[in-house]
């Protein structure tokens, strides 16, 4: 009889004794992976589906994914590609979240400020979508928390210096287009 995987990892045990613990892998990377997907898709439900698929692919490759740094780069790359594929396939950019920072109590003034902020971010997202692909990819990946130029470069197969240069160019374009 095979032991359920969820039960095995809930006991914080390595799956089949191979490599780092998969449960820990999810815990350590889920936020960043979700943010990478969200940066592209702008929708939490879609981003969560992409993040889930990313981890399921990691699950299949788990026995061969041993080096933590390479695992991180691998996850970033897969999450970004899956998000781009999903975006191209469905073009669901119009279906974006309207419930930011949900659960936090706020006064009417805060609500107005948040609505304004939401509007500005939506405009910014449109501007990012209009950037040339090579700049957009770099910017979108950099938006996730804790993504250094080196990590973005590892995900895109580019040197960190190129990433920094493209990031600067992307910001310059956005700055010019901002009103």
């Amino acid at each position, binding site marked *: 009889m095979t032991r359920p995987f969820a039960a095995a990892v809930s006991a914080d045990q390595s799956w089949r004794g191979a490599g780092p613990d998969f449960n820990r892998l999810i815990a350590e990377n889920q936020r960043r992976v*979700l943010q*990478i997907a969200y*940066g592209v898709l702008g929708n939490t439900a879609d981003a969560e589906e992409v993040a889930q698929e990313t981890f399921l692919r990691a699950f299949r490759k788990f026995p061969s994914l041993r080096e933590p740094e390479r695992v991180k780069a691998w996850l970033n790359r897969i999450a970004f590609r899956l998000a781009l594929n999903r975006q191209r396939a469905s073009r669901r950019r119009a279906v974006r979240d309207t419930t930011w920072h949900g659960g936090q109590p706020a006064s009417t003034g805060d609500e107005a400020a948040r609505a304004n902020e939401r509007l500005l971010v939506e405009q910014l997202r449109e501007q990012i979508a209009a950037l040339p692909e090579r700049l957009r990819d770099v910017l979108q990946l950099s*938006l996730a928390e804790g993504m250094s130029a080196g990590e973005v470069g590892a995900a895109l197969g580019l040197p960190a210096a190129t990433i920094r240069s493209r990031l*600067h160019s992307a*910001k*310059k374009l956005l700055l010019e287009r901002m009103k």
Partner: protein
Amino acid sequence: MSTACTEQRERLLDAALGQQPPVELLAHLRSCPRCAAALAELRGRSERLNSLLPLVARHAEPSPDFRARVLSAADRRGSKSPLFRRWALAGFAAACVAVAAWLTYAEIDGRREARVVPVERIAHWRAPSDVFLEVAGAQNLRTIPRLGQSIVSVSVTQTTGGLK
């Protein structure tokens, strides 16, 4: 806007994004209040951009049950895949063994043939005349009448065995 102002536009953007302004730009700014104002305005925009950019992605948080859902989905996939994988591996292994066996046999057979063929060739070698007598007309050659004999009168018993 003068040509000099247009030339400084890129440098203004770089400076607004935090780069050290080059000497040429600083000199221009001292003599051009319009560009100095533009730089101040661009720096304001840059601050706004830097405060908004993180919001494009970073407010996204995984739902509390996200990890449990991934593990559950992994469990479902994990329980299905090993059987298929085992069969696929078994098939692949069987194919590998078959190919390896065939290659080994071919190699051994090739070596044996290389060793045996010259011997067999010598054993089966025949003189050209023997080969000629084996052809379709061999019987006629054996029954050629002697001088003064008719072809009709030549008996089979007379010729058989003589030439063999």
